[in-house]
């Protein structure tokens, strides 16, 4: 068979060019027909889902794997390796040295500035752009996981017409034929559907399209959209206004169901500013205070000094009460009936806000009704926060619209047969459009359906043409950050599968011949920037990752008179139709999934395996309910339930989440993908099936019934009580002022000299880490960063369920307090690099030992796999390759690996070594330059990703280093220090700043 031969030769070529010396240019590789072939025909394994039973193919793979492993042992010959130089060396490349490029990632349209590490043309690691206002060097989990998305072997790789392979040119011809037909009717049958767009260039292209086809329409829909924010602003100001916050100036923050520090545009920046405002250092004891009113527990809620868990139907009520308490603009009428705790909460928060007028922030969540947003605008205006901590500006979006209305209109047009040509650019409306619209059914009435998508998904299935979309890291485009700052996004690599960007697709509508993405971007900015020297503008903007001066200036915006009254009226009206509380139904809340968002990341193994911040569940979504409701309904975690909303039903596993309010449940949408890659298809349940235009975020009456079934869920942490152990030490600011040493007194640390053996002296550098528990938001960015930096494999749900997840860094979550009002604490735990490491002593082959700088080195190639070290590790931070977890067979995944870190094979232990590859890299650079390593020069991957700078790495022998100063803080303590392991990683106790008035109650 000839195709088999092709495959063999391609595989052979790939295997020859493997490993660290793999540096043939990728563009060439991706253009290689044999390589394309290989990617299409061979269905490579991704997550290692281990089926029992052994077929021949698996047998051979294993045999090959064990032979390869045998190659690691000392007495076997190494196989011959090839070494493949360039034909012409690109000028700027030094083989073996990584380079960094500035670009950005977008989520829901909003950009975060990034620096991407690239090895010989292969992007391998995402880092935040320290100069970018939305990042300041930090990233979120989605940005970190972009690399895996890029190399996802399941990505769409072919341009298809009804399943047949077509060329781009054939598509352009077909499209232009259709456009010629539309020309006469002014494009009345043309519809474009996109997600939220902040790209000025794309906006310009759409406008050009509408100019050419005046009757064409542009629709936007984002499943996890911000319609309420937009409508609320319009309700308050009568115009579209973007609101952003300055947490660095805020003393009191009240969040009305807003996960503002984790999941909102600008949240990385907000989290950083928020944490900075709460750092207690060197006796300077000042902290801001966060009041959180929330329904579904969020990571932001875990940071709150006061948290009120209520059903979301109560949120507007509390907003009304707050308005009344603060006496905002002409709000009269009957006072709200509040429960005692609600009333106390509101009055204390109101008093605090009033006491810090101009230095407070009230913020409402994306899912809070528009009227609440309008009230919040009124409050911020009244308190003088607007203009100080709350900044208004022109909208960041190209065209802010009511997206639900937008997609409803599109569906109506389609159903009425008014649409001849629909181009769906990104998004996945067949999967995520509100269930009551009947999007799919209406879509089928459109004669020509075009689709640009990263994967062949549910929507592609219903479209005539599917065009593979270029990945963010393959695309020339631009986007705005939360404050309007524009980033010119440059590709790190040529499209692996000849994917096209939205710009290039729209160019096929507009230009003949279509322009390339780079041309489109340059042409737009050449006219827009009006720079005297465009080339230097272009180079500078690309280099910095920002276009200077594009941040939107704050502008004064005053709520229209009567806006608050209108909002109150709207809330009262909604309240009139409120159902009774005692009908046995639960309020059902819809939220985007914390790790796979609206479903777009479902095929990303890193994100699937990332524990959800609060439940620590992986690879699944669940119906979360509070302990009280669970008790009433007789539901235990893992019980399969049927959720019924207005006749729509889904089957879901239940999960009891402490801190979830009674009378409500939460489901996360994004799971239940029917058609995506092998990682994400068929796992979880589809919560979109219950989500309707009338109840996008919350439905008041859902019936939840046990079916009697059980479902196994893979959770990485099953015990959430500290069992009275002094693991996370928590205190209040008042306690700290009383006795700054309080945290140290909560545990017992043996004196350094109580040892039979003389200790080792570390005379050069001595690396250490300090982790500020007050700052940790539990956002997981560090975890994914660690996965990406250290080539940590994905093991699959079954292996996670068996307790074999591989994350070197985990975030432990503990609860304190009652089940409903539970305080959650996050504690990032990685290898402590104990100076008296229990693991090292028990290793029979010396595979783990101390470096001269105090690192607990782990030599993978020496490990025989007794697992004794892990047994003897009190922190259980060691991870073992029980099976062959690293995918060594899928060629494309090799491209994304960090060449500075060994890819571990089965049977060896692995763990965090403070990113020793970075330490060595920095040392080599410094020694070549004959200078000492500067403090801060080395950042571990987790430290770099952390939005709040909770993790600080450095030399503890240098008394002036940041880490030394942190370790000198009275809050500093070692985890399990009574064991005398002398951990190099220590923690700063968590401080909270509760309101004494509320505390007393």
């Amino acid at each position, binding site marked *: 068979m000839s195709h088999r031969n092709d495959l063999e030769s391609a595989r052979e070529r790939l295997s020859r060019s493997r490993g660290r010396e793999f540096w043939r240019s990728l563009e060439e590789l991706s253009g290689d027909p044999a390589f394309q072939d290989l990617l299409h025909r061979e269905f490579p394994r991704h997550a290692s889902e281990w089926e029992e039973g052994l077929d021949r193919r698996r047998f051979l793979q294993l045999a090959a794997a064990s032979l390869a492993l045998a190659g690691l042992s000392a007495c076997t010959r190494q196989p011959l390796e090839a070494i493949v130089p360039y034909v012409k060396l690109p000028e700027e490349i030094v083989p073996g040295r990584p380079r960094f490029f500035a670009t950005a990632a977008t989520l829901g349209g909003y950009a975060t500035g990034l620096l991407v590490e690239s090895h010989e043309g292969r992007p391998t690691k995402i880092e935040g752009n320290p100069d970018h206002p939305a990042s300041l060097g930090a990233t979120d989990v989605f940005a970190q996981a972009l690399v895996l998305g890029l190399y996802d072997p399941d990505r769409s790789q072919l341009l298809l017409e009804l399943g047949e392979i077509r060329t781009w040119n054939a598509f352009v011809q077909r499209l232009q034929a259709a456009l010629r037909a539309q020309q006469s009717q002014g494009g009345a049958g043309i519809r474009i559907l996109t997600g939220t767009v902040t790209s000025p260039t794309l906006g310009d292209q759409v406008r050009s399209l509408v100019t050419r086809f005046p009757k064409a329409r542009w629709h936007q829909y984002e499943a996890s959209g911000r319609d309420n924010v937009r409508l609320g602003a319009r309700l308050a100001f009568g115009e579209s206004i973007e609101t952003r916050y300055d947490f660095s100036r805020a003393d009191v923050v009240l969040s009305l169901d807003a996960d503002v520090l984790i999941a909102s545009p600008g949240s990385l920046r907000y989290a950083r500013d928020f944490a900075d405002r709460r750092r207690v250092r060197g006796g300077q004891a000042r902290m801001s205070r966060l009041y959180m009113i929330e329904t579904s527990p969020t990571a932001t809620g875990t940071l709150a000094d006061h948290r009120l868990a209520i059903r979301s139907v109560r949120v507007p009520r509390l907003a009304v009460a707050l308005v009344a308490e603060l006496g905002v603009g002409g709000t009269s009428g009957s006072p709200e009936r509040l429960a005692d705790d609600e009333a106390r909460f509101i009055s204390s928060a109101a008093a605090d806000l009033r006491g810090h007028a101009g230095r407070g922030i009230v913020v409402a969540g994306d899912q809070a009704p528009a009227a609440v947003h309008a009230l919040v605008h009124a409050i911020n205006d009244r308190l003088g926060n607007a203009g100080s901590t709350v900044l208004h500006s022109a909208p960041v979006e190209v065209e802010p619209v009511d997206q639900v209305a937008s997609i409803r209109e599109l569906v109506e047009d389609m159903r009425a047969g008014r649409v001849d040509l629909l181009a769906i650019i990104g998004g996945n409306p067949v999967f995520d459009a509100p269930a009551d619209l009947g999007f799919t059914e209406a879509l089928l009435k459109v004669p020509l359906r075009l689709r640009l998508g990263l994967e062949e998904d549910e929507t592609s299935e219903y479209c005539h043409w599917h065009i593979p979309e270029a990945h963010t890291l393959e695309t020339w485009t631009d986007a705005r950050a939360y404050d309007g700052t524009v980033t010119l996004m440059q590709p790190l690599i040529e499209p692996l599968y000849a994917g096209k960007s939205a710009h290039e697709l729209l160019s096929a509508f507009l230009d003949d011949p279509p322009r390339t993405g780079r041309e489109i971007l340059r042409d737009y900015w050449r006219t827009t920037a009006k720079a005297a020297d465009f080339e230097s503008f272009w180079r500078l903007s690309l280099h910095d990752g920002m276009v200077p001066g594009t941040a939107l200036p704050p502008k004064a915006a005053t709520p229209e008179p009567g806006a608050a009254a209108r909002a109150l009226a709207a809330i009262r009206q909604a309240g009139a139709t409120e159902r009774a509380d005692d009908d046995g139904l639960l309020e059902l809340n819809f939220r985007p999934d914390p790790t796979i968002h609206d479903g777009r990341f479902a095929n990303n193994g890193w994100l699937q395996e990332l524990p959800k911040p609060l439940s620590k569940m992986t690879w699944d979504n669940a119906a979360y309910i509070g302990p009280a409701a669970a008790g009433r309904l007789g539901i235990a975690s893992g019980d399969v339930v049927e959720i019924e909303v207005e006749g729509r039903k889904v089957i879901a596993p239940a999960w009891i989440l402490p801190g979830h309010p009674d009378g409500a449940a939460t489901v996360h949408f994004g799971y239940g993908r029917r058609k995506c890659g092998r990682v994400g298809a068929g796992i979880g349940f589809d919560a979109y099936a219950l989500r309707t235009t009338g109840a996008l975020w919350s439905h008041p009456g859902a019936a939840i019934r046990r079916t009697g079934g059980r479902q196994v869920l893979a959770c990485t942490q099953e015990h959430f009580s*500290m069992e009275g152990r002094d693991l996370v030490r928590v205190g209040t600011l008042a306690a700290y002022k009383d006795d700054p040493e309080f945290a140290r007194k909560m545990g017992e640390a043996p004196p350094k000299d109580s040892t039979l053996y003389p200790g080792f002296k570390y005379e050069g550098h001595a690396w250490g880490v300090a982790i500020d528990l007050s700052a940790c938001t539990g956002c997981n960015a560090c975890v994914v960063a660690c996965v990406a930096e250290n080539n940590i494999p994905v093991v699959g749900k079954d292996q996670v369920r068996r307790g074999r997840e591989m994350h070197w860094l985990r975030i432990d979550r503990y609860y304190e307090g009652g089940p409903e009002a539970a305080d959650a604490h996050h504690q990032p735990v990685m290898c402590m690099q104990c100076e008296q490491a229990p693991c090292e002593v028990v290793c029979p082959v010396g595979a783990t030992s101390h470096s001269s700088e105090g690192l607990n080195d782990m030599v993978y190639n020496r490990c025989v796999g007794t697992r004794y070290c892990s047994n003897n590790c009190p922190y259980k931070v*060691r991870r073992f390759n029980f099976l062959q977890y690293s995918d060594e067979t899928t060629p494309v995944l090799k491209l994304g690996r960090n060449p500075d870190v060994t890819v571990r094979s089965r049977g060896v232990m692995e763990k965090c070594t403070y990113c020793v590859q970075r330490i060595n890299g920095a040392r080599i650079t410094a020694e070549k330059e004959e200078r000492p390593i500067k403090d801060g020069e080395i950042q571990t991957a987790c430290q770099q990703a952390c939005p709040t700078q909770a993790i600080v790495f450095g030399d503890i022998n240098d008394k002036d280093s940041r880490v030394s100063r942190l370790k000198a803080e009275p809050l500093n303590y070692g985890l399990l220090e009574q064991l005398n392991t002398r951990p190099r990683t220590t923690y700063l106790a968590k401080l909270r700043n509760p309101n004494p008035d509320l505390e007393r109650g």
Partner: protein
Amino acid sequence: MEQTPGTGGPRAADPGRPPLIAPGYTSATVTDKISAVVLRGTPRWWFAAFGAAFLLVMLLLGTLGHLFLKGVGIYGVNIPVGWGWDITNFVWWIGIGHAGTLISAILLLLRQEWRNSINRFAEAMTLFAVACASLYPVVHLGRPWVLYWLFPYPSTMGVWPQFRSPLVWDVFAVSTYATISLLFWFIGLIPDLATLRDRAKSRFAQIVYGMLAMGWRGSARHWHNYESAYLMLAGLATPLVVSVHSVVSFDFAVGIIPGWHSTIFPPYFVAGAIYSGFAMVLTLAIPLRAIFGLKDFITDRHLQNMAKVMLATGLIVAYGYLIEIFMAWYGDNRFDVYMSLNRMFGPYAFQFWSLIACNVVAPQALWIKRLRRSPVFLFVIAIIVNVGMWLERYVIIVTSLHRDFLPSSWGMYSGTVWDYSTFVGSIGLFLALMFLFIRFLPMISIFEMRTILPEARVEEARK
């Protein structure tokens, strides 16, 4: 040497006790009866029994093949429970392997003549149990093909084993123990091999036994050096047998995990090992003496003595359990207290209480003389103690690991079908070796039996 205890020192039988050998036997009849078991044709049941054991060995090989192809992940181990059935079985087998050397060496030094009829197959049992045990450190490795890194040899890497690790101690202790036991067993066999050589009819058997006997001719000079060496070896093996299980207990005691980190472990493990070893000797001896009609040599008195040893060691073990719990409470260490409570009332409480029932409660019946004299009852108790000692190791390993210091990393453990098949397969290996042994070698030491015959009482005769 004026006095040579043990083999060469025949002494009067205690008139108050039943004899160690049925009356009427002479050196000739003892010789003929025991060697006949080997030199007679193979009984038909042997083929069936060996065949069954061999099938289990095939199961073991199949399991190991699967293990080497897929990886140690086919077992139930995880993080935090990095050891499970594998090390449980290892310690269990090693424990069983303690009876043989104990009987051979310590009882020899203590001049317990009743050992003479059971020491041979107890030693064989030791060897086979150690063979089964040494399987597990290999199979539990993530990369068993680099096992040799645990041995000191001049590698091209310039690196050596890490001698502070109890696992390296294990390597030395177990391989020393296996070597010394093998040598002990073999030199014990030499005179009997000579007997078989002289009794064998077929040329082939003559050559095989002849080569193994190395030309032993029972000369006075031979016996003189032989007895000296045997005694020396017993003197060496006695501390060795104590050290081996102490070292095995260090695997745990050197760890810092609550439930492992305990100074009581070495004595309590050694006692447990003797306990389980005698249980296994009884488990084997009771059916064997019935099948081969050897009740005249392995008399009820032997069984009773072993029952008493079990009772004594069982009490030491029970003390160990008690003192662990007491120390947790007395030491007032939060982690130890939790560990003890978790053992008793946590998810593995069933295993814990089963172990108490098997190891502490059941053997108390041995206080009753009537029950001690019933071979059937002793057999049942021995089986129960075997199970109990397995559970003990399981409880020590799993309950300590599954909930250690940080509740965040707590987890659960259970074995998989591959764990079971490895264990069953290793029992098959043990039985197969045992069947080969009883078929081809004298299962009772002939020459040592001769020494306790009345005709060997040279001194009395002289007086």
